[in-house]
């Protein structure tokens, strides 16, 4: 059940984040053991300063991977290393002492900020644990607000006084105030309007470039992921379907599921969209949730127009196809977009 590591072409330094053969099962007991795991043997590396996009639909396990990396979700098997240090089994408290440089931005800007605390209190909180207090902490909080384009006196206000996009910037400021090296971005823009989404994406791109941050960027939208990431990992039902450079995965998908995902995303150009729709409808992808996938083979079999007997019996390993790696027995027969 081990998928080959998805690593950058020339790896010289220790990865900022290293995930190996991650398996996460929910629940306990016999029933849970028989059910398919939420995350099933996922491996990837993120180099310092690199952004890795984790794409998939609901139930793909992408948010579970994010939680496992953060230590919010118990890992069944596999390892998570941060700068080479194994943090898989560390409690959140142990992590706070040893690795202060892993932070998170969540999807929902409305529930990710405590409504009863001012923005300043929220920003200063993680600094206290690092021993930064008083005026120093306040100064760093103001600087963090400035870095996300908010005025310093926003610190005295409550979250209810900000719009969704502003709250998401505050959440980013909270992640950055400790000056982390790795930030997990769990669908940071999916709750935002288009124009706000663009602003937040630009901000994340600026911060990435200025500070050399490593992002684990979790999203359901290939276009959004392609904008921010250098490499993309496509997940389906807890397994890696395809991984490779963001442009290669976006332009020349090598796995039928990536093709389905790309073809389904509508573009705001009616003529182009009509052609895409016609191509998608003639490609013959199965309906989502049509049938349960086989336990032994490829999870995409019930929806895949290329599926054959071997796909049902044998789980395809990740293997190099073009610039990317794809877990498909028929990767060379995958139609181009």
């Amino acid at each position, binding site marked *: 059940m081990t998928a080959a590591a998805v690593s950058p072409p020339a790896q010289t330094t220790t990865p900022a984040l290293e995930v190996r053969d991650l398996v996460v099962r929910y629940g306990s007991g016999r029933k849970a053991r028989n059910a398919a795991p939420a995350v099933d043997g996922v491996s990837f590396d993120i180099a*310092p*300063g690199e*952004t890795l996009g984790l794409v998939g*639909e*609901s139930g793909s396990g992408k948010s579970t991977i994010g939680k496992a990396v953060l230590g*919010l979700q118990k890992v069944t098997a596999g390892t998570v290393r941060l700068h080479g240090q194994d943090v898989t089994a560390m409690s*959140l*408290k142990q992590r706070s002492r040893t690795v202060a440089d892993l932070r*998170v931005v*969540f*999807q*929902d800007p409305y529930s990710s*900020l*405590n*409504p*009863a605390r*001012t923005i300043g209190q*929220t920003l200063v*909180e*993680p600094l206290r644990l690092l021993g930064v207090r008083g005026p120093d902490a306040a100064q760093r909080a103001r600087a*963090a607000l*400035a*870095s996300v384009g908010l*005025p310093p*006196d926003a610190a005295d*206000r409550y979250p209810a*006084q*900000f719009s969704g996009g502003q709250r998401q910037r505050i959440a980013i400021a*909270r992640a950055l105030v400790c000056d982390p090296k790795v930030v997990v971005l769990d669908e940071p823009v999916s709750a935002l309007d*288009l124009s*706000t*989404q*663009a*602003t937040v994406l*630009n901000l994340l*791109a600026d911060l*990435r*470039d*200025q*500070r*050399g941050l490593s992002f684990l960027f979790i999203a359901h*939208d290939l276009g959004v992921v392609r*904008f*921010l990431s*250098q490499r993309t990992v496509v997940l389906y039902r807890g397994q890696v379907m395809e991984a490779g450079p963001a442009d290669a995965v*976006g332009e020349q998908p090598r796995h039928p599921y990536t093709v*389905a*995902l790309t073809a*389904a*995303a*509508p573009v*705001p150009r*009616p003529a*182009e*969209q009509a052609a895409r*729709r016609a191509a998608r409808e003639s490609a013959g992808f199965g*309906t*989502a*949730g049509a049938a349960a996938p086989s336990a032994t083979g490829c999870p995409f079999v019930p929806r895949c127009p290329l599926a054959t007997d071997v796909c049902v019996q044998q789980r395809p390993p990740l293997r190099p196809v073009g610039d990317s790696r794809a877990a498909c027995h028929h990767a060379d027969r995958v139609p181009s*977009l």
Partner: protein
Amino acid sequence: MSVLPLPDADTIAAEAAPTEPVPPAQRRRGVPGFLRRPGGALGAAWLVVVVVASFTAPLWRPYAVDEQDLDHRLALPSGAHLLGTDPTGRDVLSRIATAGAEPLLSAALTVLVAFAIGLPLALIAAERGKRVEQVISRVTEVFLALPSTIILLALIGVIGSRMYIVMAALGVLISAAVYRVMLGVAQSVRQRLYVDAARVNGLGSLRVNVVHVLPSMATVIAVQAAQLFGIGLLINAGLAFLGFGPSEPQPSWGFMIQDASKHIYDDPWLLVPTGLVLALTVVAANELADALAGKAAGRDERPRARRRAPLRTAAAAAAPADPANVLEVRDLSVSVDGGPQLVSGVSFALRPGRVLGLVGESGCGKTMTARSLLGLLPDGVSVSGGVILWQGRDLADLPEKELNAVRGREIAMISQEPMVALDPMFSVEYQLVQPIRRFRGAGRGEARRIAAELLRNVGIVDAERVLASHPHQLSGGMAQRVAIALALTGEPKLLVADEPTTALDVTVQAEILSLLRALVRDTGLSVVVVSHDLGVVADICDDVAVMYAGAVVESGTAAGVLDEPAHPYAMALLAANPHVPAGEPVPVRLASIAGTVPPPGSWPTGCRFAGRCQFAQQQCTTPFPALPAHGDGTVLCIRAAELSGARWGAVAVGAETVPAPAASTLTPPTPPLPTAGASR
């Protein structure tokens, strides 16, 4: 929690020129919400009076508690004895006031003990997960099963009438119930993301609970405490009534009531003062709890508003409807009753078998516009002007009863969240068959056949299995298909689809859009789609109306508006889209729109987009009419002709505007690595 005084919004904007101005602070000072309700205010006032009177009684009471005025036994209220006297001539007012301290203190003790045990257990159970929770819950269930009155009486039998110990024991028994309520609240608060964020920050368990979990539970705690306080008072008085209270001559409310009940025939008045004080105190505690609960639920006790304001400008109704249009909306305005406009002067027309998209960001009034077509505006919001012409009638002026006949039969609706349309209690078959029988007058068997056919029409292959399922057994895409089938039960001519695919995965969205398209093609249905996604609009819509701040800023055919946007807002929305055409490189930065949509009530005169527009000039701040564009369409931009072919550019906001000193304190010398982001 008070809000610190803040400088005015204007000064903020001036000081923070490179940064985005935040909305002005809401000053939340003054009376807390629960005290603004009559029940809460009166309850709190009564409790304050009782507490102050009871604890200061030795300072002001006119008589000592055992001072007997044997000439005036069982006296009615008089100047000498304001509330009369008891059978031994003692002053009732003095005795009631003196007796108050003990029950108030012991009820408070009960509450304190109950929470001191129940609350930490609930927090621990919510934090430590299922196993710990199950152990604690089983133990508390045992406590809940104990007969508390019998235990208290048995305890009194052992230790005597030491009421504080007895009431503390009551607190222990009640703590199981407190735990039950608090567990549910704590579990739901712990699911909020800010708790996760605090844990990722490495906060200790105690601090996470004290700082992040408890404050969000405060209102529920207050409600429970106020209710338990009332219960404690009653139990305390009950025990004293039975004689298990302070012994004579020390007064107690319960024993005074018992004493008075013996004289119910010769001096009924005696029962009134004590009974009333006890009853009012318990009621006051409950009223306070109610008011706090009302605040927690965010209930706003406002009279139910009429659906439409009576004074409606019907000028637009003068012109006859174009017979080619199935729906014509002219100059439609929607307002909060007695408040600001949410939608102003919206006009559009829809021909049979066509799909119109209302597109824009949240807060632009597109959902309000769509809901007004069915008369389904929220309470307190109504159509304040314009006409909605449908089949020769003005829907905006139709009485509720006639509108009800239109809904479902002529105009149906599907919403963003398919599960909202489906009742979790009933099978899909039941939910489809009922409206089919009502709308089509079909018999049971016939209705069932139609239901199966409808499901097949919405692309459900195993219709029989789906008919037998309950909504929770369906996936999101399947549920939306069923919701569409449900909307089709009345064979409507117009379908209003409010963000029909927003909650769905992208591959499921594509399937639902194909389904809607097939329905339009096969049945001649007209559709109004509300969406924020320009891709969805490009996929399914024939015509588009782009809305901004309650107004249509651009309308026309989908191809016209999306391929050659004439309004800067439409240009900006398109430029902000990260989905590049095949073969084009991904931009280094996306175009974005600075600022936010102005809220209703603070729309500027002239162009409402001018404040955020790259192309705004002085002339944009004066009112101007919509200009024709895209054939039948319009554009609401005075510079539309000049801007033809212009492109909305990317503007830097945020990190690039960091003041140098701030950046240096925040970022220790870690230069971006050569690999970092260099590719983009």
